[in-house]
């Protein structure tokens, strides 16, 4: 319950944070909201020598309109994302998922960027970010670069970011007018999802014009159920049509087996939850 000793800095700018990270090297660790990092440290599963707290970098907080996208600062707490009107209007799927992250206290401290950079395949925000084709803006010593969501999640707890880089913001293309739903399956409320499905659809005159489906905890990264998306386009938003499309939800996935169910069960769940998520998103 007591972490190993470490040095602590709380820089006021991204530049200072990058400098500290460069100086700290392998022994430095970035802390965003700290809601995953601190438990790991106090159980001594990790013992960085330097913790770089981004909490004082005001520039990383907030949501802004940027033309065809909204931009969520990496250090924006989940609770703020959950109530932000821009998010509600243009990225409803994010809102639907972010209110399902952990619990209220954690949502006050935990941050949007921190959760995504943590890249837990059971985290609630990866699948919606992937489904909505988010871009991850990453700052490094040589400036910033944007990484597409499809390239961002590399493996279990591994992203395309270098050790010397910091996630500064997430750009989410506007999905204004899209229906959205995040269907999360747990045994008790404070669990990570056993499986969850993030679905956003644009329905035009009763027909699904476009669909985006992301899967949580169905592999070592969040996954996109592209076969489902393709099967949905042009179909009526009915139980029958969606049910047929959802049967391929688990195609190509490699879900884990653990205390809460084996891989086969998760594959089955993915099809059921996908159907439910899509139907709810379509308002059907």
């Amino acid at each position: 319950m007591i972490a190993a000793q470490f040095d602590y800095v709380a820089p006021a700018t991204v530049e200072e944070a990058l400098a500290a990270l460069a100086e700290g090297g392998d022994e430095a660790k970035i802390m965003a909201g700290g809601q995953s990092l601190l438990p790991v440290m106090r159980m001594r599963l990790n013992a960085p020598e330097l913790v770089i707290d981004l909490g004082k970098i005001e520039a990383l907080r907030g949501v802004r309109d940027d033309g065809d996208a909204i931009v969520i600062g990496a250090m924006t707490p989940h609770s703020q994302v959950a109530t932000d009107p821009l998010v509600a209007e243009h990225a409803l799927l994010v809102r639907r998922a972010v209110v399902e992250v952990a619990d209220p206290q954690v949502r006050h401290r935990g941050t949007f960027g921190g959760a995504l950079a943590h890249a837990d395949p059971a985290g609630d925000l990866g699948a919606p970010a992937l489904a909505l084709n988010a871009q991850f803006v990453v700052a490094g010593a040589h400036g910033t670069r944007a990484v597409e969501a499809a390239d961002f999640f590399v493996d279990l707890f591994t992203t395309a970011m270098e050790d010397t880089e910091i996630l500064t913001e997430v750009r989410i293309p506007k999905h204004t007018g899209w229906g959205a739903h995040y269907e999360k399956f747990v045994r008790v409320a404070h669990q990570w999802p056993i499986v969850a499905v993030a679905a956003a659809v644009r329905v035009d005159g009763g027909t699904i014009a476009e669909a985006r489906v992301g899967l949580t905890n169905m592999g070592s990264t969040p996954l996109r159920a592209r076969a489902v998306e393709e099967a949905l386009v042009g179909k009526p938003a009915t139980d029958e049509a969606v049910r047929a499309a959802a049967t391929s939800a688990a195609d190509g996935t490699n879900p884990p087996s653990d205390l809460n169910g084996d891989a086969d069960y998760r594959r089955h769940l993915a099809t059921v939850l996908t159907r439910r998520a899509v139907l709810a998103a379509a308002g059907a």
Partner: protein
Amino acid sequence: MTVTEDRAETAPKAEVGQARRRKEDQRLITGRTKWTDNIQLPGMLHLAMVRSPFAHARITNIDVEAAKASPNVVSVLTGADVADEQGGLPNAWPITPDQVTPNHPSIAVDRVTFAGEIVAVVVARSAAAARDAVELVDVDYEELPAALDLKEAAEDKVLAHPDLGTNKSALWVFDSETAGSGSGVDAAIEAARDGGIVIEREYRQQRLIPAFMEPRSCVVDPTGDQIVVWTATQIPHILRFLMAAVLGYPESKIRVIAPDVGGGFGGKLQTTPEEWITFMAARRLGKPCKYTESRSESLIAAHHGRDQWQKLTLSAEKDGTVTGLKVELLADLGSYVALMGGGVPVLGAFMYNSIYKFPAYQFNCQTVLTNKTWTDAYRGAGRPEATFAIERIMDELAAEVGVDPMAIREQNWITHEEFPFTSVAGLEYDSGNYEAATEKAKKMFGYDALRAEQEQRRASEDPVQLGIGISTFTEMCGLAPSRILGALDYGAGGWEHASVRMLPTGKVEVLTGSSAHGQGHETAWSQIVADRLGVPFEDVEVLHGDTQIAHKGMDTYGSRSLVVGGEAVIKAADKVIEKAKVIAAHLLEASVDDLEFSGGRFGVKGTDQGLAMAEIALATFAAHNLPDGVEASLDSDATFDPVSFSYPHGTHLCAVEIDTETGAVAMRKYVAVDDIGTIVNPLIVEGQVHGGLVQGIAQALWEEAVHDDAGTLVSASFVDYLVPTAADTISFDTAHTTSPSTTNTLGTKGVGEAGCIASTPAVVNAVVDAIRHFGVNDVQMPCTPARVYKAIHQQDQGGETPTPGGAAPHFDEADVADRSAGATDGAAAQAGDHQ
């Protein structure tokens, strides 16, 4: 008793029966609490444990030099250092004379027997320094094969303790034919095989963890003439006795204090290695020492509960009238025989027959040693297991006969005219009315309407199916008549002690040997004494949990506090009245026989003369005018030993909805009608019922201590040991029927464990009922969505899919902890949800 009756006409409203708000709350809701971990003493040292990552291994070397050299470390102790003084942790209940009982060192000396066992202790000037140095203790292990699976262990394939030659600790048998309380069960079963019904089932009681909210903590101060031990325990008095007995220290030189204690549920009914170690460290170093466990340590090393295989054979006539019940248990003790140890399943031995009129009954329990955390009491201790098994198999009997499960119960239960009733297990049930509780419960539940809805959902092949579960339970509580405990080879009696002290100002101090940790004794005892002595509720102060203040007691467990401890309080209060009466008569210049005591006042019959208790207290204090030969004290003690158990019962009805597409179980309605005799405080009673219900429901649906193939506890944090939240539970409909107990003054029965005992089978019966038409006749606990789904869809009709022994990592940093290094915070622990 006349006292109460006389007073009833004129007295203010009786306290007993009122929903008094608790006296305890003020400090708890404002944070002015005294948890053991709050205690800070000058120069206090802090302990941190080095624990084995292996389930079974020989310790070949421990290098403590680096740890000793670490800043602010005062001492590092290994098992070898204390081998001569530590003795063995006690087993107070050897259930048979030939029980195989391994010695239980507080620090392992040459061999570790479960993953989590303590191998060394760091003592340092701060908790952080102690924790830092734990990392520096280098232990070499030579891994040994581990006995993990209960059934395999029972076959002695791998030995948990090779030197003992067997894993079988004790075989305990009750046979109604031998005992003379019934006929032979084998004959009944044989007879039923020819034309009757024989049902054979095997149920799994998964391993649970009590998971009290306050992690255990212990502070030992050796700096005075007496050693003072503060500890988060349910049993300060038993601990004091056993510490003295085992560690060879005079009992009179040990003072044990259980300050505010944050829950127990049996989990703090223990004498722990951590207490022993803190005591030894404080004695050696001459300074106050503190140890507070982390949650992971608590889940790994505080004792677990349940963990049995239950094989049942029930015989019946063709019409469903039961004729015999045979129970064959395997009970997992873990790697040591804990304080109550094998006694826990034995506490269930008399309850499998439950409320039913079995003419023949046999109970066999084989306790087995394994290389896992030791098991002991968890809420209900033996009785939930028994109730689960019988209530599950009665449903199976109903299915076999083809009648409503309530009908099969009505057909076989003891009717209210038949009380007192001597059961086939030889117990005399004093009172009860199963019909009344059931009628009330069915009405509140809307039983017939829900059955109709169930039919309709089945007919329409609704993806959401409805199930109704019944539990018409009874239990034995109020542990326990000392003579019975003696006959069962338990190491102590079951009496309870109380003192009532009259202060000169008329205030009253009640000392109780019961040691509350959430049960509300301060309030309930005040109500009882206020009625008895006719003093205001507010004027009664209840003192407990300190062996120097409440010097004598048997502590709190087994739903015993009110029915045993409360009765002792009544007896002590009655002695005060008797003493005061003599003095009152003297002061009033009246005959004792002419006095009547009512509403706290001794009055001379037929006159308006009288004296209040407070006046007599003051006069006794002054002692200026006492009768000759009468001592200047009203204070009185009483020690009450019950003559019998008490037998609460009730009918619990549960409706669940099962999503057949996912296997998810959602509770829709839960009705509990309990008969717990006279109720002292309905508010407290309801609270006990609600909490018990959720613990029992949690066994049915969520909780399980799972070990992996190496014997590491996988569910070693609240991430994987699924204690439910408010969001997972529902509001309950509770009510009571009342058949007062005839074995104590107030007619109370005990409620602490009832909810937990009753609810587990109600829920699982509901789950099975919802999907029985798919050919399912059991789902193993916990009834996870995966198990329920497979039971419905994959011909896994017993729902026996084992829980995979793995937990998802949720952190990139969560690399497998170095198994060669000790880790106090749990080798397999996963950190918390959440970004």
